[in-house]
C-alpha cells in the first residue's frame, strides 16, 4: 500500500473529565480520500486536530507524515492543508489580498490553481473578507488550503454551507486533486450522500473509539438487508441467529433484518422459517447506524 500518512496507537485524549478519544489505533495510508464519519461529539474534530498537531495526546502515540505530532516542523506543516469547521481570516483584507498574504508562506503555492478554483467556486477576489457569507468564507478557506498543493488535506465539514452545485463542483475537484498531487484527503461530513460518492475509505468514530476503519466497498460487502415474508406461519418475535445485526418485525409475517453476510445462510433461513427473502445491499446511510452500534461493543 501507499505512504503512511497518519498513525495512531493507543491514542487517548482527555479534556478534564471528558474523554474525547479513547485508545484510538489507526493507520491511514495514501493516496486516498478518507471519509471521517460519526455522530455529533464522537471525536471527529478532535482527531483531525491531532493529525495536524493542534492537540496532543494525553496518552498514546500520534505520527503524521512520519513525524511524532508533538515535533511537527514547518517542513511537514507546509505539506498539510486544513479547512477548519469555522474558518477565520484577517477581516480588514480583500479575498485576493488574504490569498496573496498566505501565498508568501508556501513555496509550492499554485497561482494557476488559485484562479481556477476561485472561478469554479465563484469566489469574488475583490470582496471584503469581513462581508463574506458563511458559504463564501468556506470557499475562501478551501482555496487557501488547496493552493499550496499539500500532500495531506484535512477538511472538517467543508460542504455544509455550499449549495448543491458548488458542492458537486467541490467534490469533483477533490477527485482531481487526489490524482494530480497524489494527495491524501481526510474529509469529515454529516452528509453521507456526499461522502459516499467521493471517498474510498471510511473511518467511523463513536464516543471517541474507532467503530469502523475499512474500504467503503468492503463495508458494503459485509452487510445486507433481508426483507422477509413468511409463507405459512408467523415469524418469531426475535431472530436469535448470530448473523442478524438488526431486526424489525413489522407484522407477524413480515420483517426487515440487517445481516452480516459472512455468516448468513439464506437458504437455511428460508427453510427454517418457510419464508421468502429478498436480499438487498445497503448504502452508506443504511450502514451508518450499524457501524455506530459496533462502536458500542
Amino acid at each position, binding site marked *: 500500500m501507499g505512504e503512511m500518512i497518519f498513525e495512531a496507537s493507543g491514542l487517548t485524549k482527555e479534556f478534564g473529565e471528558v474523554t474525547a478519544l479513547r485508545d484510538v489505533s489507526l493507520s491511514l495510508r495514501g*493516496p*486516498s*480520500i478518507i471519509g471521517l464519519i460519526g455522530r455529533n461529539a464522537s471525536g471527529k474534530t478532535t482527531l483531525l486536530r491531532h493529525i495536524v498537531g493542534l492537540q496532543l495526546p494525553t496518552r498514546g502515540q500520534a505520527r503524521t507524515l512520519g513525524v511524532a505530532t508533538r515535533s511537527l516542523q514547518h517542513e511537514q506543516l507546509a505539506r498539510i492543508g486544513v479547512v477548519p469547521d469555522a474558518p477565520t481570516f484577517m477581516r480588514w483584507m480583500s479575498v485576493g489580498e488574504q490569498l496573496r498574504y498566505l501565498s508568501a508562506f508556501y513555496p509550492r503555492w499554485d497561482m494557476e490553481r488559485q484562479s481556477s478554483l476561485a472561478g469554479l467556486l465563484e469566489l469574488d477576489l475583490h470582496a471584503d473578507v469581513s462581508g463574506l457569507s458563511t458559504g463564501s468564507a468556506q470557499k475562501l478557506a478551501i482555496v487557501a488550503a488547496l493552493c499550496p498543493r499539500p500532500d495531506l488535506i484535512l477538511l472538517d465539514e467543508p460542504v455544509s454551507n455550499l449549495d448543491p452545485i458548488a458542492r*458537486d463542483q467541490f*467534490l*469533483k475537484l477533490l*477527485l*482531481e486533486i*487526489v*490524482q494530480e498531487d497524489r494527495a491524501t484527503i481526510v474529509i469529515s461530513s454529516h452528509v453521507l*450522500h456526499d461522502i*459516499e*460518492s*467521493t*471517498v*474510498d475509505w471510511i473511518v467511523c468514530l463513536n464516543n471517541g473509539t474507532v467503530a469502523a476503519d475499512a474500504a*467503503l*466497498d*468492503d463495508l*458494503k*460487502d459485509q452487510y445486507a438487508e433481508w426483507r422477509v415474508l413468511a409463507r405459512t406461519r408467523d415469524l418469531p418475535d426475535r431472530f436469535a441467529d448470530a448473523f442478524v445485526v438488526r431486526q424489525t418485525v413489522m407484522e407477524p409475517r413480515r420483517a426487515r433484518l440487517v445481516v452480516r453476510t459472512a455468516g448468513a445462510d439464506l437458504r437455511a433461513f428460508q427453510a427454517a422459517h418457510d419464508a421468502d427473502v429478498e436480499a*438487498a*445491499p*445497503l*448504502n*452508506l*446511510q*443504511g450502514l451508518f447506524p450499524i457501524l455506530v452500534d459496533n462502536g458500542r461493543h
Partner: protein
Amino acid sequence: MLITIDVHSGVPAYRQLLDQIRLQVAAGRLRPGDEIPSTRALSAELGLNPMTISRAYALLEEEGLLERRPGLPLVVRARSGATSATARGAQFTRALGPVASMARQLGIGGKEAGDALRRLIDGNER
C-alpha cells in the same frame, strides 16, 4: 464505453464497474484492442473515486480481460471465442435470475415464460 454507476445503490462501485466492463466485452461492444478510458477520465466523467476505478481495472487485468502496456492506455485483450461464449452465457444466466423468480411469484410456468422471451428477442420488437 458507456458506463453508469449508482454510488448510492449499496452495490460496491468497483463491482458495478467490473460487471459493466465484463458485460460489454462479452457483448462485443468492447473488442480486443479497444482502449479503456484512463482512471482520470472515468473519474471525472462519473464523479467516482479514482482508487475505486484503479481497483476494478487491476482486477480485470488479473483475470486477463484488460492489458496494461507501459505508458499506453489500457486495452481489451484478445481472447479465445470459447472463453467469450462461456462468459456471455454466465453473464446472461445471472441476469435471468430475478426474472425467473418473478415468474415463479406470478405463477407463470417455464414454457410460457421461455416462449414469451423468445418472441420478444426474435420478434420485430426492437
